[in-house]
């Protein structure tokens, strides 16, 4: 406020001075040089907030990173599919179950496509979903705690890539398989792939109140590669569209053998029809094994349930539910415009974009104008469903987003550019280079009914000379463009973490007021929590020792423990008694074969230590918490296995009240 007044004062003074200098300083360029200053557009003054949140997938980091736009500042890394020693995610006893699968504990994945929950086709800012590609999983992240709350494994899937996209009332999060596999899995020759492998498309229902996920059904499709997908919206709500490649069903030397067909397909799935079929008892339950991991905010603890069966649907048993739209050249991105009318297939080996018309598709279906079938699924005639073609002159189109003003923006990987074009006329309006080899792009809300068409972020695969070199490995690079005008304007470069495949953006106002500041201690239902320091204790159960400990600036209660023996398994259950925003405490024990813990205010986390050596061993707080942080430490005395020293614990010397 004061600063503004001074600025105003300075401005007035300056203008008076300038005015007195006479007419030679009249603005010749209207708006002046400053109004087009890229630096000014991305400058967020110290202490000010960004206008948008951006959630970038971390790719092979397995995590999700949170950025502010337009500054490009990284705000947080949210651990999802990977262990994260910074907070103890996947290391603490409470969060280890989050990474359980039918293959056991899998501490990493390849995180791909984040998507924010929607209501009536508009972003609602409640959750963000993201898929693990390698060991097929879908995660749900809360946008109040910014923590991963749930992970469900997808059986009968492999290379969970055409995921995790949300229908317009978050009825379903959809996960399609990129690699077809034998279903059920069995020992068979690889060369017998053709007509024996299947591709599953999973529709996972989302509980409207808690967000809990459950596989409603899996559609068992021919053994193609289901690459990317997007839901229909508005008029096409109720449909889902998947690009396919390898309709050749090759199983080796794929880069040649799965690029033979001139056209592959976009699969159009009428999920409402299948939902109705399933609700009326349709489908076949088949044995399956998959993990469902749910984190409970009140107990601060995750639990795993192993599921034993899944409902499968044969598309041939639901007439009118699935059609194939021929689409040239191994289409990759599959994007639907905000009106739901246009389905864009980005043929990655082509120069052109193919746009299908939803209305034409419905008309062709109603007229039963089919051009053959594949495994019993009707193929529509390419010319009957085609709305238009964008002849851009670029090479390698991958993904398209929308600005809500009738324009679309497509990335071209091979020619390293973003191309802006007009829906309906298909004319190219502008093109800007990217640095380098752009993959995905994101406009906040750009895959919803209501995009916020102010910026587009291009996420590039190759960085090379954009930043100071850091050895052979460089973080990937992103570019932010202003798209508020007719022409795009490059504003800023910023490094990203891992490999962002896609991102989801959202106006900050939709999220920031709901962002939790603390966990209330009186709502903490963790079985090992202590709600006041006088409940601190140490218990022995055989060779298990449970330490019920609390923290507040700046001490542990208790901080001296004796009676622990070599061969014990010591559980530290630590409750942070702070109730103030941004005052976590850390915990680390010398020689512990795991990571530290970072415990948020009001939270309880547990860490295991198996002491191997006799001695007196220190532990300490790892997060600089106050001026007395260096004093925040304690000792555990470890005696020989056959020692008879009783368990004891204390803080301070006196027993004074």
């Amino acid at each position: 406020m004061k600063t503004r007044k001074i600025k105003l004062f300075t401005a007035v003074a300056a203008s008076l001075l300038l005015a007195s200098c006479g007419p030679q300083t009249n603005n010749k360029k209207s708006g002046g040089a400053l109004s087009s200053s890229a630096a000014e557009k991305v400058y967020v003054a110290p202490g000010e907030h960004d206008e948008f949140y951006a959630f970038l997938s971390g790719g092979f980091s397995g995590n999700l990173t949170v950025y502010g736009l337009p500054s490009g500042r990284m705000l947080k890394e949210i651990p999802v599919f990977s262990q994260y020693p910074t907070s103890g995610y996947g290391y603490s006893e409470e969060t280890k179950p989050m990474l359980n699968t039918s293959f056991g504990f899998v501490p990493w994945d390849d995180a791909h496509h984040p998507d924010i929950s929607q209501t009536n086709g508009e972003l609602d800012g409640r959750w963000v979903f993201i898929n693990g590609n390698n060991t097929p999983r879908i995660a749900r992240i809360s946008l109040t705690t910014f923590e991963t709350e749930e992970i469900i494994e997808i059986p009968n899937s492999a290379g969970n890539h055409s995921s995790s996209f949300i229908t317009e009332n978050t009825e379903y999060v959809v996960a399609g398989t990129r690699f077809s596999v034998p279903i059920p899995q069995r020992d068979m020759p690889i060369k017998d792939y053709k007509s024996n492998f299947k591709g599953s498309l999973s529709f996972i229902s989302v509980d409207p109140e808690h967000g809990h996920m459950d596989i409603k059904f899996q559609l068992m499709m021919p053994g193609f590669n289901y690459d990317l997908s997007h839901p229909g919206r508005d008029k096409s709500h109720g449909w889902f569209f998947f690009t396919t490649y390898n309709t050749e069903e090759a199983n080796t030397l794929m880069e040649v053998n799965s690029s033979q067909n001139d056209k592959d397909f976009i699969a159009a799935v009428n999920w409402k029809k299948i939902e109705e079929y399933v609700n009326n008892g349709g489908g076949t339950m088949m044995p399956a094994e998959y993990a469902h991991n749910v984190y409970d905010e009140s107990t601060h603890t995750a639990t795993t349930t192993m599921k034993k069966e899944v409902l499968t649907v044969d598309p041939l048993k639901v007439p009118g539910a699935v059609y194939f739209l021929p689409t040239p050249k191994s289409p990759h991105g599959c994007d639907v415009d905000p009106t739901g009318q246009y389905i864009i297939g980005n043929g990655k080996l082509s120069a052109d974009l193919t746009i299908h018309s939803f209305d034409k598709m419905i008309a062709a279906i109603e007229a039963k104008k089919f051009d053959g079938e594949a495994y019993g699924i009707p193929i529509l005639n390419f010319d009957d469903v085609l709305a238009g073609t964008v002849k851009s002159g670029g090479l390698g189109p991958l993904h398209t987003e929308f600005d809500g003003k009738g324009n679309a923006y497509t990335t071209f990987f091979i020619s390293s550019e973003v191309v802006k074009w007009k829906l309906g006329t298909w004319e190219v309006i502008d093109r800007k280079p990217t640095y380098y080899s752009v993959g995905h792009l994101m406009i906040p809300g750009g895959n919803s009914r209501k995009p916020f068409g102010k910026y587009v972020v291009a996420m590039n695969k190759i960085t090379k000379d954009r930043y100071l070199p850091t050895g052979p490995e460089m973080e990937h690079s992103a570019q932010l463009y202003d798209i508020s005008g007719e022409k795009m304007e490059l504003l800023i470069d910023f490094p990203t973490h891992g490999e962002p495949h896609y991102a989801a953006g959202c106006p900050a106002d939709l999220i920031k007021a709901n962002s939790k500041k603390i966990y209330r201690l009186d709502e903490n239902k963790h079985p090992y929590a202590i709600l006041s320091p006088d409940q601190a204790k140490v218990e022995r159960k055989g060779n298990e020792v449970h330490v019920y400990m609390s923290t507040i600036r700046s001490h542990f209660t208790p901080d001296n423990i004796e009676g622990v023996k070599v061969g014990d398994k010591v559980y530290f259950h630590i409750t942070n008694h702070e109730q103030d925003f941004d005052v976590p405490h850390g915990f680390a024990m010398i020689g512990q074969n795991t990571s530290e813990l970072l415990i948020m205010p009001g939270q309880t986390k547990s860490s295991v230590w198996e002491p191997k050596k006799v001695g007196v061993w220190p532990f300490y707080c790892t997060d600089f918490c106050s001026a007395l942080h260096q004093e925040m430490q304690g000792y555990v005395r470890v005696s020989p296995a056959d020692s008879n020293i009783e368990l004891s614990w204390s803080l301070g010397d006196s027993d004074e009240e």
Partner: protein
Amino acid sequence: MKKITIILSAILIVVLSSCGGSTANEAAKTKDETKETTVAKEEAPVEEKAAEDVKPSERVDLSTKGVGPIKDLGELPPIDEKMVKEGLELFQAKCTACHKAKSKFIGPALKGVTEMRTPEWIMNMILNPTEMVEKDPLAKELLVEFNGSPMANQNLTEDEARKILEFFRTLN
């Protein structure tokens, strides 16, 4: 920020002084004021010295109300036993990590606190500790006396802080 203020003041002074022509009378007044200021300055160190002898935790200040949401509680009604009970429970859950009733722990002992501080000051210290140790002179000194160990904000409601105060009233 400070620099700008100084520059602006300097400009003001120059502008004002350039208006010139103060009367002899005004000049005399200014001199008198200067004298008064000098006298005040001489007295100040005496006060400070007196304060230094008593530790902040032992100093009685029944006038300062502190900085925070509690402005004026007026005359407190007789002690309410139900509130005391609830206050004790809250104290045990939220405060005993650092405070004991009768002896110094991480922070000061709380016995007798209502005879040394105003009820408003106590509640502001509970509800608004961060700003208190920045702006309230006594809270600032207490922070130094207790080795810079910060009073944690336990995010209590005014109602909860009032109950804790009620419990403190029984410790005298």
